[in-house]
């Protein structure tokens, strides 16, 4: 007996909250991966990251409408096409933004913060004017609805499982790009020593642009996955941006492993506490703990040793 619950009930509650935490973890990881690439690798603060994510969500929404209208037979798999589209649309916008704005500001990181905040305001209003202020939700194909019952008490929703599977795939993909592909090697070379990377023939400007595009593209995929568990509105991105930055900073900016570890810690802490107290108190406690730890250990959980 623990409190008013039997042991079985209590462990089920823990498992359910743990699963809810895993859903939150997936969203955090997906958002934070893109941010970790842009912030950790390039040192650019992308305050418009949430808006890139929402762009992906809108792409998914329109994809679902399109398939419902014209290709109902393929509706079951529209989601995969939508994710690929979301990646390229958000990524392309990212490349354009880098070319117009970010490349002039690499040496003024605080100013990128203000400029991308301006960009996020513009994008928000753009979504509101074009897509309307109302929140929209996608229709899920049948095979994603429902849930699997593990025991009498524990139910696991299928769409949550699917989002986790996507998260895992994308994380592995990003890890592969960053650590195995030539492109990833170039990115890391530029991060570690820009001048030398240029001297051995890497086009550092191009690498910057594509890295930024990659980060934004992943944000788009994150938004696409996000539509499965929540609705999309013009300002939905802003709700997550601070949490996501904390995840990235807490994990140690330049380390992908750290980002995942910190997303896991923060999301589990928050969802477990949410059961015992009100949502806002749980959130305040989680954020305060993170900020407190960051004040004691500003470099984050995992650090990359770089000779400067």
């Amino acid at each position, binding site marked *: 007996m623990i409190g008013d619950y039997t042991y079985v009930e209590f462990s089920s509650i823990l498992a359910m909250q743990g699963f809810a935490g895993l859903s939150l973890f997936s969203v955090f990881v997906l958002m934070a991966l893109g941010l970790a690439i842009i912030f950790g690798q390039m*040192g650019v*603060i992308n305050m418009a990251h949430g808006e890139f994510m929402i762009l992906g969500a809108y792409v998914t929404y329109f994809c679902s409408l399109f398939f419902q209208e014209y290709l109902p037979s393929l509706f079951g798999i529209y989601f995969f096409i939508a994710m690929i589209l979301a990646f390229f649309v958000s990524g392309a916008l990212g490349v354009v933004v880098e070319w117009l*704005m970010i490349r*002039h*500001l690499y*040496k*003024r*990181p*605080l*100013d990128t*913060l*203000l*400029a991308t*905040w*301006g*960009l*996020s*305001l*513009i*994008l*928000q*209003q*753009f979504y*509101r*004017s074009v897509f309307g202020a109302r929140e929209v939700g996608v229709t899920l194909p049948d095979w994603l609805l429902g849930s699997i019952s593990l025991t009498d008490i524990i139910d696991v929703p299928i769409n949550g499982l699917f989002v986790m599977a996507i998260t895992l795939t994308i994380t592995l993909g990003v890890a592969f790009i960053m650590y195995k592909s030539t492109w990833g090697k170039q990115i890391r070379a530029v991060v570690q020593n820009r001048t030398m990377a240029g001297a051995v023939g890497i086009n550092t400007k191009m690498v910057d642009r594509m890295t930024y595009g990659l980060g934004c593209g992943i944000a788009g995929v994150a938004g696409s996955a996000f539509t499965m568990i929540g609705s999309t509105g013009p300002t939905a991105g*802003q709700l997550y941006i*601070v949490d996501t*930055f*904390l995840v990235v*900073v807490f994990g140690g900016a330049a380390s992908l492993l750290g980002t995942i570890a910190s997303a896991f810690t923060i999301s589990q802490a928050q969802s477990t506490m949410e059961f015992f107290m*009100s949502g*806002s*108190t749980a*959130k*305040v406690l989680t*954020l*305060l703990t*993170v*900020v407190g730890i*960051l*004040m*004691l250990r*500003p470099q984050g959980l995992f650090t990359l040793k770089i000779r400067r």
Partner: protein
Amino acid sequence: MNITRLFDRSEWLGFAAIAAILLILFPSVIDIFRLNLVGKYLTYAFVAVGLVLCWGHGGILSLGQGIFFGLGGYCMAMFLKLEASTPENTSIQSTPGIPDFMDWNQLTELPWWWEPFNSLAFTIVAIIVVPSILAFIIGQAMFQRRVGGVYFAIITQAIAAILTILIVGQQGYTGGINGITDLRTLLGWDIRTDSAKYILYFVNVILLLGVVMIAQFVKVSKFGRLLVAMRDKEDRVRFSGYNVSDFKVFIFCLAAAFSAIGGAMFTLQVGFMSPSFVGIVPSIEMVIFAAVGGRLSLFGAVIGALLVNFAKTTFSETFPELWLFAMGGLFIAVVMAFPNGLAGIYSTYVKPLIARILPNEQKAANAAQATKVPTKALAE
């Protein structure tokens, strides 16, 4: 330091011009409703002046000035609310004598930390001290460990988010999302009448001019030069034997105290305080006031706060859809094209023009050129 040497000649002119516009021109030409609005805009100028010192000169970008603005405002609002909640005024409540929102949330007695706000003297001290202590704790923890720049900005932003969630969540103690409303009198003096609004406007302007003078004093003192040196080459200052973190903590606390005074004046003039002036969005907007005016110019900060807020009111009344586009564009333009803001435009384009017409102003123009941020400093 001799008071006449606080400003050079052209700065005295600027200071006198701003004082004349705010104290004489505005009250005589615009009606009390608009004047009250100007007063509200000017409360943001306190924050902007703080940011000029902290960000423009010290290189510390705080995205959490709303925290201090809000804390100052809430301290004032708590005092006014307690005064408005006399047992006679609140006799219909189940517990008379406590603020209405506490009664709605089933609180039966005043929380202990509300008690001292029955005293005006305590409140005035708290308006300055509470935000300064918080700024001291944040600053001490961060700057001692040499956290700066981007990390500092993100952490202050997170703290602004935390404070907003806390205020909204603890409805019974803070008034929740609606904030503390329905404020009536200050020591029996009705603050909602037109004459009170005039007086509060003048108090506000005089406080603001005082804050600008304090800021100018800091700017021209030896400490002001160290601040710029820290922004441009922190390590060299450290190697010269100065304790960089103490200086940073001090300037951050000073900016926090300025913001808090602005917050308190905001509550007095607008008549309420709510979490919508604390969070992330208002805090970043406060940075843009300083950026538009010119991040190095104290007068620019005042003008920037006035202009941006005036534009915000006008735009959002007439073209609500365009406002966010304009605001976003302003952020981008000010960062990319005019990093020195209006003050930079003035000293680059207008001053040489004046100097050509009036040759004896040439020296002043040259001096102004010399104080412009070199692009290298921005690159830091």
